[in-house]
């Protein structure tokens, strides 16, 4: 593998160097460009018995360096990752360092060929989504090849094959797939004339994984399917303010640890409709999935090796207490998920809008399966500019979180959450923002309170202090303080404080993060 890495890197450099030379020869060709990003998050951990934080090392860091060369016909990229002493909460195999991401991409006419590691998503990702989400420790890229063809107007064809990354190895299963999308409006004048965009898509993914011994009793082992096929069909329709998506996916027998080695097929269907016109937006989504856990290793547990991804259809909250009990999509079993959202902007200088206007947003989501509610939240958010310099956001949320389903124990947590977020513009370059939040519940650890103050001194500085306090049970303060400095493409942030143990979620995928305390440093650079 190291040989392959080196070879791809050298080829990439050579192609780029040639591109650079050619660029000097011909002004018509694009010059070679080097882009990159550096991201380094550091924690100097400390022991804190009150919150259960342990000092496991002197310095912990997750550091990534991406380099990308772009030329007219060829692009190449590498990513170096240093995770030898990782931040808390990742799986043990996450630890390591090296260059796990390396690729060369060539373009010629309507064809594009990628060799190396790459990310891809078919449709909504119901049967294939490889992606990177650093905060969750997810990088399930494929190592292999991908061909993308755009042979005609509105036609995109993809074919790929490869092995999936699992931290510092690649799983043995071979993943292959194909995808086709056709925009019919490019072909049918009647659609063009009516301003309608209609896209049809179909995908297929195959996993080849060798047989292995899985015993159901001491003298019988499972006859496992070596090939698992999944397919997906979808249609999207856009006309004026309306947008509709319908998608169906199915998976053949795929006995795995996730589904307790059953031989049922997996199915998923989703619908999403939205309406958006100036000042008004509406969204309605529905999803049913069953037995759709699709991994490149059938015996895998934990967060790695997923080939597919099902969107959560619940709101991703950013306010601290609204995000205290986040939902994670249940892939292995089944779930019905519904989400509806409406937003309206009351115009300025109207009775309800006042002198500066007002925005109202209501979101409702509900997830259940076989009579059990997994999650539900109803939140109402009002944002209004009260004066020329002061903007206020108020939010109320009613939440039901089935802790047993998501975390394994704890029962249903029913809570009411109240949030006020005010921003005061002190001067053209100075703004003060403050949040006050309260979560009321008789379940789990009881009530929580949260406060935050954030001072922005544009264009370089931002200072913040916050405290999350458990009112109901532990009476522990989780305080944080930080200073961020930005200049050009650089951003440096230093802080100190406590982080509560809990779940960090994104897009319905969650990672358990243990409690920690200490100094933090975060550096980002883009060029």
């Amino acid at each position, binding site marked *: 593998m190291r040989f392959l890495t080196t070879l791809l890197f050298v080829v990439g450099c050579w192609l780029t160097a040639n591109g650079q030379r050619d660029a000097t020869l011909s002004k018509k060709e694009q010059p070679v460009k080097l882009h990159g990003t550096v991201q380094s998050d550091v924690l100097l951990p400390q022991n804190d018995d009150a919150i259960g934080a342990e000092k496991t090392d002197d310095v912990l860091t997750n550091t990534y360096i991406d380099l990308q060369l772009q030329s007219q016909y060829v692009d190449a990229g590498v990513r170096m990752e240093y995770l030898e002493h990782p931040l808390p909460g990742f799986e043990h195999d996450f630890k390591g360092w090296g260059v796990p991401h390396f690729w060369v991409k060539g373009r010629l006419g309507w064809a594009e060929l990628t060799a190396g590691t790459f990310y891809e998503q078919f449709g909504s990702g119901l049967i294939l989504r490889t992606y990177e989400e650093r905060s969750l420790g997810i990088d399930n890229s494929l190592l292999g090849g991908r061909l993308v063809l755009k042979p005609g107007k509105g036609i995109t064809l993809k074919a790929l094959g490869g092995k999936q990354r699992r931290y510092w190895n690649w799983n043995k299963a071979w993943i292959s797939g194909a995808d086709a999308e056709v925009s019919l409006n490019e072909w049918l004048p009647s659609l063009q004339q009516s301003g309608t965009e209609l896209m049809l898509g179909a995908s297929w993914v*195959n996993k080849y994984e060798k047989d292995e011994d899985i015993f159901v009793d001491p*003298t019988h*082992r499972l006859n496992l399917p070596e090939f698992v096929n999944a397919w997906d069909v979808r249609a999207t329709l856009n006309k004026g303010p309306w947008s509709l998506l319908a998608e169906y996916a199915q998976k053949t027998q795929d006995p795995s640890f996730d589904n307790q080695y059953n031989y049922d097929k997996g199915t998923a269907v989703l619908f999403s409709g939205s309406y958006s016109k100036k000042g008004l937006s509406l969204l309605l989504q529905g999803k049913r999935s069953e037995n759709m856990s699709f991994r490149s290793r059938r015996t895998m547990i934990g967060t790695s090796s997923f080939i597919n991804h099902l969107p959560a259809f619940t709101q991703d909250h950013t306010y601290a207490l609204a995000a205290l009990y986040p939902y994670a999509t249940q892939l292995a079993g089944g779930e019905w998920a519904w989400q509806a959202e409406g937003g309206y902007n009351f115009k300025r200088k109207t009775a309800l809008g006042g002198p500066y206007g007002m925005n109202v947003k209501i979101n409702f989501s509900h997830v259940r399966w076989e009579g059990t509610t997994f999650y539900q939240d109803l939140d109402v958010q009002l944002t209004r500019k009260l004066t020329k310099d002061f903007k206020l956001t108020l939010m109320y949320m009613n939440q039901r979180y089935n802790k047993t389903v998501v975390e394994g124990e704890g029962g249903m947590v029913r809570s009411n959450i109240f949030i006020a977020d005010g921003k005061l513009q002190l001067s053209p370059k100075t703004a003060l923002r403050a949040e006050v939040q309260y979560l009321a519940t008789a379940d789990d650890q009881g009530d929580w309170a949260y406060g935050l103050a954030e001072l922005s001194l544009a264009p370089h500085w931002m200072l913040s202090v916050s405290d999350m306090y458990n009112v109901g049970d532990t009476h522990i303060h989780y305080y944080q303080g930080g200073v961020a400095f930005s200049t050009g493409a650089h951003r440096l942030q230093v802080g100190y404080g406590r982080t509560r143990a809990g779940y960090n979620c994104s897009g319905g995928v969650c990672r358990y993060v243990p409690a920690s305390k200490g100094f933090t440093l975060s550096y980002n650079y883009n060029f």
Partner: protein
Amino acid sequence: MNVKTYILTAFVALAMTACSYIEEGDRLIYVKPAEVKRCVLLEDFTGQRCINCPKASDEIKALQEQYGVDNVIAVGIHSGPLGFHSTDKYVGLSTDTGDEYYDHWALDYQPVGLIDRGGPLEYTAWNARIREELAKAAPVNIDLMLDVQNDQLTIWAEVMGMEGTTTGKLQLWLTEDDVIAFQLMPDGTRNMEYVHQHVFRAAVNGTWGEPVSVKEGETFTTQRYTFTVPKDWNVDHLSVVAFVYSDQGVLQAQKIKII
């Protein structure tokens, strides 16, 4: 190429796709019972707050019924984030030593098991590994000796070389059966009267045991270890588990009941 050609190509590609559909009657393959040449140690890293751990306990029971309780020596090491330490209100079965083992083996999830100290395995993979381990010849045999005076135990062991020279460590543990304490169940409920089996209680000769080196035909005798049984343990339900391990894993294991 026109649209028809693309569609035709797509169908040909799909037709070439390999597919494995297995009928209901063909889903099990008979395999001869494993040949038993030695004892196997199964360290089950479990926890009272782990809802799937009772499933692993059921798997252990099935394995022991098939291969024999004396051949599959299971130890339930309550530990990790889903383990529970005793409080004034509830009996907890986690121990600091168990947590040390959990951390040492860098485990992520529970239940998870080590079979003869190979890599961590989820419980559906235990059977296959146990079959492999049972069929291996052991380079040593272990005899356990006991002297019980009320709550005072004196324990020692003899390690006999059966092949070549064996260098490793001998570990002596105490386990207890039929311990009643709460357990979270797979359906999310809390069973306050759950009966826990082969619960790891203590490491008699240190967390990582004592060095042992023995040649074929020779016998190595350990020192005599004394241990006072705490009052909340039931002596009648205690067992001693002994095993010899090296970098290659566990080489042989043995278990005897105290009474």
